[in-house]
């Protein structure tokens, strides 16, 4: 397995900083904004964005956790994957929801996440923030905020590691030899 580091710890921090500013700029501040992290690593990224917004705007945005397993389009092709908890402790109606994920690939996870959120109410807008957009889309879905856009061959794998769960911060591409 050959690996190449795309983002190191410093670069991830700068990238998340930039995305946070872009979110605030595009939405003209943080009012009626909320964050929903997609399990697993989207949660930690959403956490980081929330604390950065708090240090800039002095306000903690509502933060939710979304498990998309029940909305997958490939359930019939796999053994029942473990379902984890969805916990969105606020009303999504009329909110601008920033959906946060680590890697954007086919767009199918995002499609499932949008459906899941729409079942909880009618947000004013849903925007998508991802740390890395690796290309390879199978659905007409695109991120509003991408930390890094980097085309990766479909046989390669993008691994996002975050210290909250993996012990260190890095984004690497792994190529099977």
């Amino acid at each position, binding site marked *: 397995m050959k690996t190449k580091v795309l983002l190191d710890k410093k670069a991830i921090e700068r990238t998340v900083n930039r995305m946070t500013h872009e979110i605030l700029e595009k939405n003209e501040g943080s009012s009626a904004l909320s964050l929903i992290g997609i399990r697993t690593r989207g949660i930690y990224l959403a956490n980081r964005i929330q604390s950065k917004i708090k240090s800039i705007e002095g306000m903690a945005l509502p933060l939710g956790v979304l*498990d998309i*397993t*029940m*909305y997958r389009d490939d*359930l*019939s092709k*796999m*053994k*029942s*994957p*473990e*379902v*984890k*908890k*969805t*916990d969105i402790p606020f009303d999504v109606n009329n909110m601008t929801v920033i959906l946060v994920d680590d890697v954007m690939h086919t767009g199918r996870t995002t499609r499932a996440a949008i*459906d*899941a959120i729409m*079942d*909880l*109410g009618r947000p004013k807008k849903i925007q998508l923030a991802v740390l890395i957009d690796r290309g390879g889309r199978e659905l007409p879905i695109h991120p509003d905020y991408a930390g890094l856009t980097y085309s990766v061959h479909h046989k390669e794998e993008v691994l996002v590691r975050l210290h909250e769960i993996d012990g260190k911060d890095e984004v690497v591409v792994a190529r099977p030899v």
Partner: protein
Amino acid sequence: MKWIKKDLLGIRELSKEEVLFILNSTDSFKEISRRDIKKVPTLRGKTVITLFYEPSTRTRTSFEIAAKRLSADTINISSSTSSYVKGETLKDTAKNLESMRPDAIIIRHSMPGAPHMLAGIMNSSVINGGDGAHEHPTQALLDLYTMREKKGHIDGLKVVIVGDIAHSRVARSNILALKHFDTEIVCSGPPTMIPPYIESLGVKKEYNINKAVVDADVIMMLRIQKERGGISSIPSVKEYATLFGLKTEHIEKAKKDVIIMHPGPMNRGVEIAAEVADGPYSVILDQVENGVAVRMAILYLLTGREM
């Protein structure tokens, strides 16, 4: 862990790991029933049949709601409206239903082992919704889920089961499930309703309910199983109510945070006093709410397994 079993026939067939896997999955499904839109697309295109040869309100409705909230299609068959009254055997009914390609069948039957027989001849998942006085696995799972939810843990609990233990599939499934954990189980009731071999399951017996409930964390009341001859085990219902009905005085002997459970249907004034059933320690309606979530988890795990 991944779920691999096709059927849910009884607690006896489940490992502790599998019991915990179902309880942990249930957490995720419980939230759906509290939404405005109580539906997720998870089991879209799956067909679930309930085949009930015995009366039921809770279990059948609970399974139907669970399936519908997961977007499965449901069909309900009860013996009185089926070809059973025209003399068709259970096996033939099952084979015919199988030809319509359902994904899961929930069966309730007075014959112990009926679900096991169907499981052997059907490709679809078979779920035991109660077989005679044998097992009622989904009831035990929802009971354990409720205990864990209210107490935070199952290990270390003293659980007292009172009533017609001999004829109760709920008691049997609960005992088997609780034995996977470090629990103290006490069965109480008139000697005619407690099987003499009950201690071989690793539980204690205490005929005096006043002694049984001392320091209990959980008191589970059972009704007299009239349809299985329970009534012939006691001199009179009135005497039973006096000696074994749960009253406020018993709750005072239990732990301060005791929970009172009942699988339903209850007979107020017989095995449980109305003020206890409706009182602050009662979690009887929480059991019903949790029943839907547990059954959603089970339907998801069984019908989503690898073919």
